[in-house]
Structure formats: structure tokens, C-alpha cells
């Protein structure tokens, strides 16, 4: 499928250059040439995300701007393509995302949400400053398999109103097997064991790794 290969290369270059308009133009032109919506998502968007992970881990030079555009465009393209699929896809599960209570930083969570959507997860983004009760209530209401709690600040990462509070509620309600807890954000990057001390089942250093960890926890 050389045409798909070319589309992937052009799309990836555009995302890497943080050029959203060019990336969307590549997709538009591919559609005009008859590339199927399923192939756009599974042969272009998802491999582009995978490649960004690879570039990140081998060269360490991917920036937050690149992550942001990759996530944003991935979500936009996926949202546009999925209704055009010939067969309905089997979803990979529902993920509840939000930033911990007392924390108003929403960027990381937003990037994770975009990458998850492109990978066929249903994402419910609760926004910023979310209480542990709301995380757990929404997870139960939507039968989510994973709660993702983002924190940019040490006190919101370690405090009882953040992931630790969610863990407590999950344990109190015997939901620990049904709903897994993942965390992310700067404090976890500075201290790679912090996730264990707040009772999370896993953490991710970036949005693309988050997809892999959430996928593993869902299984």
C-alpha cells in the first residue's frame, strides 16, 4: 500500500512540525484519493502516535508542542473518521480523566485524552479541580475501566484530595479489580516511585505511554 505509506510520512512530518493545518490537509487529500476512513485511523493516525513515542524514547527531543498537536489532530481526525467506518468498531473501554482537586493544570490530561481517543477508547474528561468522589462516581456511572488522575503540583499529587483519595474510595467500595487507577504529571516524572506511594496501579511519563499502560490495565 504505497499510498498509505506516503500519507503516513506526510502526516507525521506535519505533526512533527506542529503544523495542524498541513496535517489535516494531508488527510483530506488522502480521502479524495480514496483512502478508507479505517485506514486513515489505523494505518496513519495510530502509527504516527507510535512513531512519536519511538522518537521520544530514542532521541528525547519531542516537545510538549509536538505532543499537543499530535494529540489534537489525532482526536480531530478520529472523530471525523469513525462515523464513516463501514463497520462499527468495538471500543477498547472507557477512561475517566481529570486533574486532581486543588490543581488547575489541564494540558497533560488533554494530550492524553486525544491520544486515547485515536486509539478507540471512550474518554470522559471531567476537567480540572476534580474531587475523588466525582472521579469514582463518574467511573461507576459510565462503567469505566480506568481512572486517570493528573497532577502538576506536588501537593495535589501527594494529597488526600488527589489520587490517594481516589484509591481510598476504590478500596472502600471494593472496586479495585474493576477500576484501575493511573496517574501522570510533573511530580511523578521527578520521582518515579511516587505513583506507588499514592496507591496508583501505574503511571506514564507521556501521553503516548499512557495509552499503552491504560490498554494493559484494561485487559
Amino acid at each position, binding site marked *: 500500500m504505497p499510498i498509505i505509506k506516503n500519507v503516513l510520512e506526510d502526516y507525521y512530518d506535519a505533526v512533527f512540525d*506542529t503544523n*495542524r*493545518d498541513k496535517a489535516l490537509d494531508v488527510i483530506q487529500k488522502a480521502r479524495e484519493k480514496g483512502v478508507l476512513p479505517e485506514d486513515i485511523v489505523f494505518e496513519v493516525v495510530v502509527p504516527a502516535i507510535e512513531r512519536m513515542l519511538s522518537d521520544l524514547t530514542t532521541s528525547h*527531543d519531542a*516537545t*510538549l*508542542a*509536538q505532543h*499537543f*498537536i499530535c494529540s*489534537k489532530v489525532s482526536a480531530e481526525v478520529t472523530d471525523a473518521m469513525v462515523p464513516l467506518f463501514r463497520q462499527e468498531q468495538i471500543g477498547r473501554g472507557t477512561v475517566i480523566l481529570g486533574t486532581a482537586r*486543588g*490543581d*488547575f*493544570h*489541564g*494540558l497533560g490530561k*488533554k494530550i492524553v485524552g486525544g491520544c486515547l481517543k485515536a486509539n478507540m477508547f471512550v474518554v470522559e474528561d471531567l476537567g480540572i*479541580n476534580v474531587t475523588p468522589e466525582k472521579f469514582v462516581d463518574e467511573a461507576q456511572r459510565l462503567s469505566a475501566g480506568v481512572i486517570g488522575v493528573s497532577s502538576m*503540583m*506536588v*501537593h*495535589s499529587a*501527594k*494529597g488526600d484530595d488527589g489520587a490517594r483519595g481516589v484509591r481510598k474510595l476504590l478500596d472502600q467500595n471494593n472496586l479495585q479489580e474493576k477500576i484501575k487507577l493511573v496517574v501522570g504529571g*510533573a*511530580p511523578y516524572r*521527578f*520521582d518515579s516511585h511516587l505513583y506507588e506511594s499514592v496507591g496508583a496501579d501505574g503511571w506514564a511519563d507521556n501521553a503516548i505511554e499512557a495509552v499503552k499502560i491504560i490498554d494493559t490495565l484494561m485487559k
Partner: protein
Amino acid sequence: MPINANQRFNALMQGEIPDRVPVVCNLFEQGARELGMSIETYYSRGEYVAQGQIKLQEKYGYDNIWGTHYTAQDCEMLGSKKTIFVEDGPPNVGHLILRSEKDIERLTIDESLLETKPFLELLKTIEIIKREKGDQCPVLSAVIASFSMPPILMGMDKWLDLLLTGSVKIRNLLLKKCSDFCIMKTKALFNAGVDMVSYSNPVATASFLSLEQFKTMALPWINRDINTLGPQGIVYFNGGGLLNPMIDTIIENTGVGAVYIHPMDDIRQAKEIIGGRALLAASINDIPLIKWSNDDIDREVKRIMDAGKEGGGFIFGTLSMPFGISHDKIKTMLEAAVRYGQY
């Protein structure tokens, strides 16, 4: 006779080797704990912050004193109606003032902002600490670079959206207003008597942007922010992102006298890039200080000193020390910095 912190910094700035590496310690909300009050009460009056900062400096003996409050205070000056205070961390912006292009157009930057209560309280703090401690140690304050100010006015995701995919005209309008604010506040801080201003620019670091993006998008605004008043007394602070790839361009374009790098930046590499053109401040990774043992802290301080102190021109620093770091850990870190920083 031992020299004081002012003399230590002066020696450094004149290219001399002082008695030891100066130590900058960024303790902010910890001042509330010293006074036995909540963080919200602490920040309600400039006098409290001054007392708290003086107590902290005298208790630990580091080489600076902070004449600054918290980042969200800039938003309050610009009309933000809500700041969220917590018991164990810095205050957060609870009301983003820019929600539309119209809001950006309506945003007004003028000298009346310097008459708002938040800024007047800050001036009180500076006046007291300058009077009480100014003859002994440099008074530092802080501004946010124009390029990194929009996230606290509109949210980081909205800012990246505007920056990378939005209208260039609106983006430049916003950055011009943020730059005007930055310049005005910097000037007012120096007029109030601070010795150094930390210019914090997290969005213009290698964690967010490629070097090419930095040069085309951020650099023109950095030049405007700094060069309008001149680089005297400006410390270019990483703000939480990797800085090494940008250092050469920053020094070449602004002539700033000090660059304050991120804990994940390579200290030896930074020193090589700077090549004696500016002072280098290196940060310890202060989040793990919460749980590190005294031996861990000692080892890490030694590593930083070994990498940076040779030949002078070097400052040991921290990022924003989390509230959860115990007194003993702070003391251990600072004692190690004095011990390993000796020349």
C-alpha cells in the same frame, strides 16, 4: 571575618572567586508555617510575607531573600476574581480572565495596575525586607515572561492552541500586552529596591519548543521584555523546563548576567555553552527531597557542586521547594551546599 551574602554575590558578579558558592533557596509558602498561620492569611498582608521570609532566611542562612508572593497574584492584578488557596502548596488561579478574542482585545495594561491591592501588598513586603535585610543579602523578586504569561490568563491548552494553530494577529496582540505588563512590573520592582528579578519563561524552554520555534516565536518577545529596560539584574529562570539548548541564543540576544537551569539540564554542558559570559545557577531536583535520605541529599549536592563550582561563576539553587519538605531535609541540603561549595 566571614563575608555576607551581598559581598559573596558582588564578588561573583565581578568575576572573582568568593569564599564559597552562593546558595539561592526558593522557600515561599513555608513562611506561613514559620508564622503559624494559613497560607491564605499569610499572603493577605505584605507584612506577613516579609516577616515569614526574614524568619526563613535567618533560620537557614541562605544567600538571598525573596520579595515575591505567588504567580496567581499577577492575574489578580489583571482582574482575576478567584484564587484557590490550599493548606500545603502554592495558590492557584481559580478564574481565567481570557475566554475569548474579545477578552484579549479588552485587556488593558496601564500603570493603574500598580495601584491594585495585590501589588501594593507586594511592595510592602519588598520595602520591609529591603530595610531589614537589604544590607546583608540580595533581595530577589520575580516576573513571568510575556511568552509564558498567557497560560495563567487563559489556560495552557488554550494558549498552545492559539500559539500553534490560532490567529497570528490575536496572538501578537496578547503577547504585546503581556510584554507591556512584564516590562512595567519589572521596572516597578527595581524601583521598589529589589536587586535581582527572576525572569521565568517555562513555555519558551526545550520542554515545550524546538530551538527553531523558540527563535521564531519566543525570542522576539524575550528581546522586547528584557532589552526595553536592559539586562541589568535579570536572572533568566527556566521556570520548570529544559534550558540548555536555548542558553546561547538567550545570552547572545539579551546579554543577561545569570542563567538558572533546570535540574534535568546538564550542568557541565551549560557551563561550556555559557563560556564565562554569564553566571550559572543550577537547581537541585527538589521534589525528591521530600523522601531522600540525608546521604542521598549529601550525594546530590556534592554532584552538583562538583559539576559546576570549578572556576567560579556558579550558584547553587532550588526550584520551588515543595511545602512537604521537612525542616531537617532543608537544613541537610543547605549544610551540604555550604560544605561542598567552599573554595
